[in-house]
């Protein structure tokens, strides 16, 4: 079943302060498209080690958005990329798309 991004993690800090959640989502929205673009660029050029570094950074945003299973997939994908394997690339694409769709709603 496809995971749905949520603000559960951020709400631990905000204690109901919506402005904090909004500020954080603003930062995620500004950073994520560039991180995604750099990942795809490295992946397409088969710079898998660099792509793994990009996944590593994106992973943090996956966790911030409460996507626990996706985080596991991203970790496995990162480790696979370091060894030059790309079997989880399409699963990771789906995660990126899910996040992109969710961020558009903000």
């Amino acid at each position, binding site marked *: 079943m496809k995971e749905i991004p949520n603000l559960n993690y951020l709400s631990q*800090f905000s204690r109901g302060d919506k402005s904090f959640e909004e*500020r*954080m989502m603003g*930062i995620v929205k500004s*950073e994520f498209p560039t991180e995604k673009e750099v990942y795809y660029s490295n992946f397409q050029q088969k710079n898998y080690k660099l792509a793994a570094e990009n996944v590593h950074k994106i992973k*943090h945003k996956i*966790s911030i958005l409460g996507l626990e299973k996706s985080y596991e997939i991203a970790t496995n994908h990162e480790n696979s990329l370091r060894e030059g394997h790309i079997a989880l690339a399409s699963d990771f694409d789906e995660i990126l798309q899910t996040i992109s769709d969710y961020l558009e709603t903000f």
Partner: protein
Amino acid sequence: MNCIIIDDEATARAIVQELCMQYNEIEVVAMFSNAIEAIKFLNQNEVDLIFLDIHMPDYTGFDFIETLKNPPHIILTTSDPNFAIQAFEYDCIVDYLIKPITPERFQKSVQKARLIASKTSKLSTSDKDVMASGNDLYVNIGKRLIKINIPSIYLVEAKGDYIKVKIEDKTFTIHSTLKKIEDKLPQDLFLKVHRSFIINVKKIIDIADNSVLIQNDVVPVSRSNRPELMKRLNLL
């Protein structure tokens, strides 16, 4: 505690900043997206604590630590648990926080930093750079207390703001004064023979008019201290 946050990811910096704001005793004085800018800052400013990401482009967190002569306490923040063992090799690393950082885990980290900071501040007070306990002397070197067996000391030499404590196979350089260590050493064993030298009288090999040979060191003896030295010797 003044702290800085170093992380190339703005989201991560914002989260750590938010967590810090929940503690009155922690003040975030600056945040950096790369290690180079942080090094420039630290060349001009002193901080008590650094929240440091490991995975950064160009300069990793560990590269950064290696550039610091006297690193403050550091809490590593990373999504990668694989560096924990490497982290143990650095005395300055107080804790290792795995992202996503939870408020509960952050609180433990702050407690650790607080505890270590209070211990360090106790040790770094100027009158505790040299402490004696029985036959042992504890000296503060690089935020560590090193034990030296007192009878094994054969010479203490003043060098500016430092003293050199010599034992058979080692020399310790300590930020302290001759007066402070003189007060900690037993008077029946040690004697100040010159304004810059204290010797262990049991370790003297021979004596000339104005010097003594002790191990491989020739130590000057001032005219005013010579009578006391002669009194201490078992002369035939």
